[in-house]
């Protein structure tokens, strides 16, 4: 009989389970080593933890008289650090950030505003103009704060002289909604996913128990800072004494310079990044760096070996989505063995995955079926669409809409999806955003 495999060296001492909210984790992380960089932006801008904490505390104080518990605040910003300040400031006041992609079309913006009835909006100059067009239809929206000027000063005028304990003494609770995320979708109704503190903390907790980081580590983020994944990366680096490197739009020609000069040790890869990097001209710099791991959802089987050999670090497959967060990952000790296998690994701690047939019965190993997921702190539903939420749940299990197969060792394989999106470790990203169609096909 072939033995089932499992994750080894799960490091429970790295757990963040002691935190009840991401605000608590953020304040703790920033306070531990205040002079350590929180974010190093490609191009030279560095924000220390002290500065990030101070900016956020001031903005949280500014919002204190303007938003109340349960309010929704629309944020429509591009790739700017002020997004982090806005997020934590809003959440510390027990309001919820409604994230609208800064490239969203007018009709989508209208739908999101209608569904959420926000009391406040925070937006870039161009996005503010779009929001203003809808203002008459959204009487709840009392004000629009415009983020402009050089980064990270875009929110400085709001709370410039305010000294407040709202952030440090936040009354927010684990079941408060943190964000409502509208990911770009190719077709169909836009769905806002409601994520509470428990969702965010579980993803952080599982990841940190599975992968050990140190004060010498820096995570490279190539997505806009306003994405769920980027915020997760930042919170991870804050709680593991690391720093986040923010690359401004992925580029194969700049990638290795950023990796080397800013000393990245880990990257969250997405979409076509692997293929893009392999298309780059080979050189010594792609081996002379400190990168030791890339996390990627759907590492292309045919490129996997070349990626690992050419660049000299492991590419670890994950499976997840915004609804369930991180669901599976290749065990660290099997990273080499599973190169090119197409496996998305095993369920992460605390998550169960069933593979069922059309009648809802569990299928045998080797048979393709629909993936159902159960675990603590999944998403709280689709905003304004209780029908869709209940449709997605089946007896306490969430129907992912994905087709998986499990082999005799218990390893999972992604076969296909009913959703026209890529599945990443915690966020759905449309192929149009990533420029990749590889993962939508059979693996």
């Amino acid at each position, binding site marked *: 009989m072939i033995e089932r495999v499992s994750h080894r060296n799960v490091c429970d001492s790295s757990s963040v389970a002691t935190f009840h909210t991401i605000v608590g984790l953020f304040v703790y992380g920033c306070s531990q*080593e*205040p002079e*350590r960089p929180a974010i190093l932006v490609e191009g030279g801008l560095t924000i220390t933890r002290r500065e990030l904490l101070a900016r956020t505390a001031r903005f949280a104080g500014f919002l204190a008289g303007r938003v109340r518990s349960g309010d929704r605040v629309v944020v429509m910003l591009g790739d700017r650090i002020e997004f982090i300040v806005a997020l934590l400031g809003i959440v510390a006041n027990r309001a919820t950030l409604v994230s609208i992609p800064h490239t969203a079309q007018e009709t989508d913006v209208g739908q999101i505003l209608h569904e959420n009835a926000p009391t406040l909006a925070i937006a870039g100059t161009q996005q503010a103009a779009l929001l203003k067009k809808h203002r008459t239809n959204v009487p709840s929206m009392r004000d629009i704060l415009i983020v402009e000027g050089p980064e990270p000063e875009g929110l400085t005028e709001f709370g410039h002289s305010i000294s407040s304990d709202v952030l440090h003494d936040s009354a927010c609770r684990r079941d408060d909604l943190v964000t409502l995320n509208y990911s770009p979708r190719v077709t169909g109704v836009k769905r806002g996913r409601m994520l509470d503190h428990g969702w965010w903390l579980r993803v952080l907790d599982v990841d940190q128990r599975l992968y050990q*980081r140190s004060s*010498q*580590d820096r995570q490279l983020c190539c997505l806009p800072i306003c994405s769920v994944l980027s915020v997760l990366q930042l919170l991870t680096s804050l709680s593991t004494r690391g720093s986040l490197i923010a690359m401004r739009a992925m580029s194969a020609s700049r990638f290795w310079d950023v990796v*080397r000069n800013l000393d990245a040790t880990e990257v969250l890869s997405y979409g076509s990044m692997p293929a893009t990097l392999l298309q780059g001209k080979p050189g010594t710099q792609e081996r*002379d*760096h400190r990168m*030791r791991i890339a996390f990627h959802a759907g590492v292309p089987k045919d490129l996997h070996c070349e990626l690992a050999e050419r660049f000299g670090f492991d590419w670890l497959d994950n499976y997840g989505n915004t609804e369930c967060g991180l669901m599976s990952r290749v065990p660290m000790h099997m990273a080499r063995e599973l190169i090119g296998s197409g496996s998305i690994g095993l369920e992460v701690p605390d998550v169960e995955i069933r593979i069922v047939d059309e009648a809802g019965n569990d299928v045998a190993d080797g048979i393709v079926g629909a993936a159902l997921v159960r675990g603590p702190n999944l998403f709280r539903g689709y905003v304004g669409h209780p029908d869709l939420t209940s449709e997605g749940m089946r007896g306490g299990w969430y129907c992912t809409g994905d087709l998986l197969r499990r082999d005799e060792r218990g390893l999972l394989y992604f076969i296909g999806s009913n959703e026209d999106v890529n599945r990443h470790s915690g966020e759905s990203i449309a192929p149009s955003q990533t420029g990749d169609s590889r993962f939508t096909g059979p693996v």
Partner: protein
Amino acid sequence: MRFDSSLLGLERRTAEFRVSSVRLAQFAATVNDTNPRHLAGDVAFPVFATIPPMQAAMEVLSKVTDLPRLHGEHDIRLYKPIRPGVRLFSRAVLHGVRPSRAGVTVAIRTETADAHGDLFDQQLLTTLIPGATLPHAYGADSPGHGLPEDVKSSAPKFAACFDMHEDQTRRYCEASRDYSEYTTRLEAARAKGFDGLLVHGLLTMAFACRAVVQHACSGDSTILRRLACRFTAPVILTPGQAISTSLWQWDVEEHRPVFGFESTDARGSVVIGHGRAELQS
């Protein structure tokens, strides 16, 4: 202070530390090194070896005490030079806790090796908890590296003085990832009782090491086998701060040339004593 003797032998390990030429070159530049091989990132400046095991050592130390402490001594035994491409794994073990005239010392032993088990260095990091008392000594004693008075009373064979720059500690924070507040924020330094920014002990040691490599090793740091010293007084980053290091040809042990060294700051205070550098035979 109270000490739980069951902590002796407590061990912590680090995550993998990969080495790149850029990181090596950045470190060399940060300590104002002028050695072309270090600045090119071909081989590590010797004090770079303190970086990979440091987190593990600090994790062990934090289990022993949370009292204010000072870096007392550092003793590095080098077996293989660190070069780009190596992948290092470190472990730190609580070596000993002992009463001393100035307080209580906590010694932590570290080892850094690659994935094949090839040893790169062993270190003994001693921290001093000023004013603390302890009725007994626990664990092993640390090997000495003192400079005999008769040697010190002779004329040094070499001497070198290197200036510290205004942003020296800030740059060292980045190179070492030791972002201790009192090294970059005046308010934090004053809260600790210092009248200026405190220079990291290992940064001061790096300045002394430059003199050792330049003169005792004739520029070839790969022949250095041991570098040990005691931090005898804090260095404050004042305008015009400089570290002057004197080296004495001390002895030849087992065919190995041995040098003693001592460093003073710009005011003439001895900031590094009991310095010992051993070269390969």
